């Protein structure tokens, strides 16, 4: 029996001849916040979709608390929250209706605490298509948190957010990471440095580096150094 909370082993995903995720492995032994960095097209979103069980890997295994999504998908889904890059919005529904719909799909109860945590009280009766980008992201987050996940996956959650919302998101991530594994894909190195305990750097579908961050780490320098060195190699 594996003691790690999350194990990703020799994960591969290809589209025709193109390897999008290529032999990627890492483990997470305790709850922490992990940033996934890399240039566009590195395979970050594909990796996150596989971790969220929205995509089936061509090869390799994912184990979350020893549950494999390919063997026990429904149990796995109960432990995972996924915040996709494009928010899941059904324009014809109100925010309450959409949350209730997702709650029913996930076989969970919608709680007032969750609505308060994501600051959605003021827009509950608004149609989803009327929401601003910031509120769409809050709704996106609320949907991901419905299952009280053990693994929270966020695909570029900070895109297009104003500074107030970025601060709110940062606080939510800090609050969650004590009892959840949070994996965030982002292009903002400063944010990654602020919220993460660990950084995974991807390039061309491969994992270039796995760096544990401390207070003195300079992520910008580390990122440039690592990607340059690997490019030279």
């Amino acid at each position, binding site marked *: 029996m594996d003691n790690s909370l999350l194990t990703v082993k020799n994960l591969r995903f290809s589209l025709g001849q193109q390897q999008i995720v290529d032999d990627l492995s890492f483990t997470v032994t305790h709850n922490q916040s992990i940033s996934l960095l890399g240039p566009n097209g590195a395979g970050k979103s594909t990796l996150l979709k596989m971790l969220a069980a929205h995509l089936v890997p061509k090869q390799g295994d994912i184990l979350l608390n020893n549950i494999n999504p390919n063997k026990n998908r429904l149990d796995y889904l109960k432990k995972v929250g996924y915040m996709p890059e494009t*928010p899941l919005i059904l324009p014809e529904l109100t925010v309450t209706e959409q949350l209730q719909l997702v709650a029913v799909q996930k076989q969970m109860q919608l709680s007032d605490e969750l609505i308060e945590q994501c600051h959605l009280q003021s827009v509950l009766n608004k149609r989803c298509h009327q929401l601003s980008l910031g509120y769409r992201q809050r709704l996106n987050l609320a949907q991901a948190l419905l299952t009280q996940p053990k693994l929270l996956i966020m695909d570029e959650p900070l895109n297009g957010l104003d500074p107030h919302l970025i601060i709110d998101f940062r606080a939510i991530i800090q609050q969650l990471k004590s009892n959840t594994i949070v994996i965030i894909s982002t292009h903002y190195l400063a944010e990654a440095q602020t919220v993460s305990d660990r950084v995974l750097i991807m390039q061309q579908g491969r994992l270039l580096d796995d760096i544990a961050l401390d207070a003195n780490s300079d992520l910008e320098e580390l990122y440039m150094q690592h990607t340059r060195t690997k490019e030279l190699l």
Partner: protein
Amino acid sequence: MTLYRSELKYFLRSPTIWLILCLTAFISAWTFLLSIELFTTLQVKFAGMSDAPTVTQGILAPFISSQAKILLFVTAIIGGLSFSRLSHHNGWSLLHLSHSSELTIVRQKYLASLLVCLLFILPSIVAIAGLTLISHSPLVPILMMVIGLFLLMMWMLALTMMISSFVNNSGFAILLSLIVLMALLIISQSSLGAEWGKNWLQTFSPFYHFFQFSQTAIPLASVCYFIFGVFVFLWVVKVRIVHKRLVL
């Protein structure tokens, strides 16, 4: 809020659907009133005929037939939108995160779409029932034709939902559904090679099977054709949802 209810809300809150409902109701009412007017005018000439057409033959059967053609457009729109529209707002994610089985998802979406389609033919059904009662027409042939219409609608809706699950663009899904259904309608009317015996190509068309319901006995082969078709198409949609998890 279930997927069934959210699907209903999508259709019932869409102004386009109400506009189409108004148009189809107007066309149906117009054709119905015209056929009554024509029948009343000709009734004087029918008086001396031994085998004069009845209300069923002169009004109701052609009207139910025209409803089948209207349903062709309605099911192409309703079914065409059901899955193809999901690509716009990351709606496939909703199906992927669902803890329900794929069959439950397909069933809920199908039943909601079916209910919306029923709304389109409801005024016509009421008109048919009214005229049947007023004119003291035999109930069985009318009932048979209405059952045939309902089965045809179920079949066409399942087919268009299947087409929709393969297409990412709503407009294209509707267009493709229309082309396929029109082709099937043309096949059913083809008399090509009739002098050589039965045209087997016609038996592939749902409209051919729908016309079998104008007899008084239940055409079991046609009932099987419709029910089997619905199951096959919906099963393909289920496979398509599973397949979506294998591709980006």
